[in-house]
């Protein structure tokens, strides 16, 4: 008896529980609605290479950027107890920098000015500078993260346009497009591999460094972590810089998908989805302990929801409303009052059961 409730408690108490249930609901819904949703087919793309396609492939493909951002956003949330709302704008800045490095002043060059890898590194540096700027405001000036990142949220897209002097760079080099689409001969979309690589990196960081311990310590109690020899300012500053790296990777995928950039709409509102992914993963938005895998799962659930709604022909301007419903449910479930009530109910149930068992 006791063991059973323990297992039950363990399952329900696991952070992965909520996103998994959400995922399950979506899968069951789509199975009932139209089983062909899960069909996988292999077809040739325009260049004659066989590629996998189907709704599931689309979800994993288009969810890549969000999953990558969710990783960084989780760590920022854990350490600073707030969220970075400038990631969409920083994607624009970083992407614009990459294209500037590749194109120079000629918006549609015949040959690229530098290698794609170098351009990516330049983009990473740009995003890390933006992250450092945010981190500086949060860690050293003690400005709440949402307010601090509001600056780049507002100004970022104009900066992005300014980097390319408002030209519209366009890359015709096919290799550039491989990153956002398919590498010839490999039937799985490249962004999937990039997202997997990011997950691997964060797993290794967790295993071999104190990143998780320190960020959680700072998030839970800044003062006591300081007394224990951790420098909270440095930790807060670094998590924003780390987020910058993830943002640059997401930017690379975004600009390579269509080999160009639109400053005003690229990755629009993606910060909200990333924050939602963190919340969906059951992480506290006010910092402290976190589970990065739950956030990643949350990101794919959001993309699953988006793709499902597209498939159902829900008007896409109504999408935010549906997401809002999900947010409301989540916030209510994870609020302390509801949690307390749940734990009291389950305790009552447990004690009743043991009483019955005793008789």
């Amino acid at each position, binding site marked *: 008896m006791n063991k059973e409730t323990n297992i039950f408690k363990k399952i329900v108490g696991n952070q992965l529980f909520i996103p998994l249930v959400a995922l399950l609901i979506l899968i069951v819904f789509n199975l009932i609605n139209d089983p062909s949703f899960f069909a996988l087919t292999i077809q040739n*793309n*325009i260049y004659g290479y066989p590629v996998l396609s189907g*709704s599931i492939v689309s979800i994993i493909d288009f969810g890549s950027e969000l999953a990558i951002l969710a990783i960084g956003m989780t760590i920022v949330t854990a350490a600073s107890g707030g969220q970075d709302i400038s990631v969409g704008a920083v994607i624009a800045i970083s992407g614009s920098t990459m294209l500037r490095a590749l194109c120079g002043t000629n918006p549609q060059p015949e040959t690229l000015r530098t290698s794609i890898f170098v351009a990516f590194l330049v983009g990473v540096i740009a995003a890390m500078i933006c992250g450092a700027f945010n981190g500086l405001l949060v860690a050293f000036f003690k400005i709440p993260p949402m307010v601090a990142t509001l600056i780049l949220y507002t100004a970022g897209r104009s900066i992005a346009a300014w980097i390319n002097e408002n030209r519209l760079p366009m890359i015709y080099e096919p290799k550039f497009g491989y990153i956002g689409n*398919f590498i010839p001969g490999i039937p799985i979309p490249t962004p999937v591999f990039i997202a997997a690589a990011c997950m691997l990196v964060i797993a290794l960081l967790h295993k071999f460094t104190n990143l998780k311990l320190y960020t959680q310590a700072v998030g839970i109690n800044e003062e006591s972590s300081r007394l224990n020899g951790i420098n909270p300012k440095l930790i807060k500053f670094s998590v924003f810089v780390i987020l910058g790296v993830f943002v640059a990777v997401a930017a690379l995928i975004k600009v390579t998908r269509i080999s160009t950039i639109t400053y*005003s709409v690229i990755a629009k509102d993606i910060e909200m989805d990333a924050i939602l992914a963190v919340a969906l993963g059951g992480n506290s938005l006010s910092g402290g302990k976190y589970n990065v895998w739950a956030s990643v799962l949350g990101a794919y659930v959001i993309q699953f929801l988006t793709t499902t709604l597209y498939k159902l022909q829900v*008007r896409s301007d109504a999408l935010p409303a549906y997401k809002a419903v999900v947010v409301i449910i989540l916030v209510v479930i994870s609020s302390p009052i509801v949690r307390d009530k749940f734990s009291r109910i389950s305790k009552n149930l447990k004690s009743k059961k043991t009483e019955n068992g005793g008789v």
Partner: protein
Amino acid sequence: MKKLKRLLSIVLTSAMVFSVAACGGQTKAEDDGLIHVGIINNDPNESGYRAANDKSLKEMFTEANGYKADFAYSLKNDEQIAAAQKFITDGVDYLLLSAADTAGWDTVLKDAQKAGTKVILFDRTIDADPSLYEASIVSDMDKEGQQAVDWLKSQNLSEYNIIHIQGVMGSAAQRGRSGALDAEAQTSGWNIVAQQTGEWSADNAQQIVQSVIDAKTPFNVIYAENDDMAKGAVAALDKAGITHGVDGEVLIVGFDCNKWALTELLNKNWNYDGQCNPFQASYIDDIIKKLEAGETISEKTIIMDEKGFDATTITQEDVDKYGI
């Protein structure tokens, strides 16, 4: 820390006060023989259209052409109104306005009238009494949509299965371009297999088209309400190995006539691109010259000529001349 914060706030406040003082301190423009124009526009970073629009205004209103121009940019109506008030106190001769929002302009335009500043609207109209402005130079979005739909009809496809990717819902461009297609789909029995807003974004358009491909719904026309979304849609087609353009399986219709989009037309990857003319500057120049010569403007609302390009007839000159 606290001290630093206080210092910072003092510095910022004083900077603000000084900048306000600097604005207020300007006197009326001295008479230098130039026509002084204050131009209020939307942020040129908003889109390629706006960038081209801004560039054409900057090229027209130069000292060489007899103008002294000041520019103010904002996507927010209240900031635009504040800029307008500043221009009026500065004593500009003409106020050229592309309003962010249609409402809220009456008071400031009345002030302009009192101060003797003549107002010319471009690109966007406002809800104000026409006596408050001299002229309004606009695009007819309904006509743009209608031209594209007429062209689509003239293709005489055996059946029409259309993916319709809309702009931001409620914007003038979206309403005009969607309206024409909706009406024609009803009367001619065209089948719209998907109709969703891509919010002008290539990303969203790609996902919308991908979802139709994944659902294996057949389609043969993509009607995207701007070039970026058409590009996103084409990226999804390329991924799925569906041919497009002239002699392709799917017809591609875009709008705005970006230079790169017209190049796609020239390369026969797309089929049609509708223009949204950003070059109002020459029209405005005409009107100012007429007003300065004491002529009256017969028609307040001036609708610009707008073209539509077909991939089978477009030439390199068209790309160079009309591409933005």
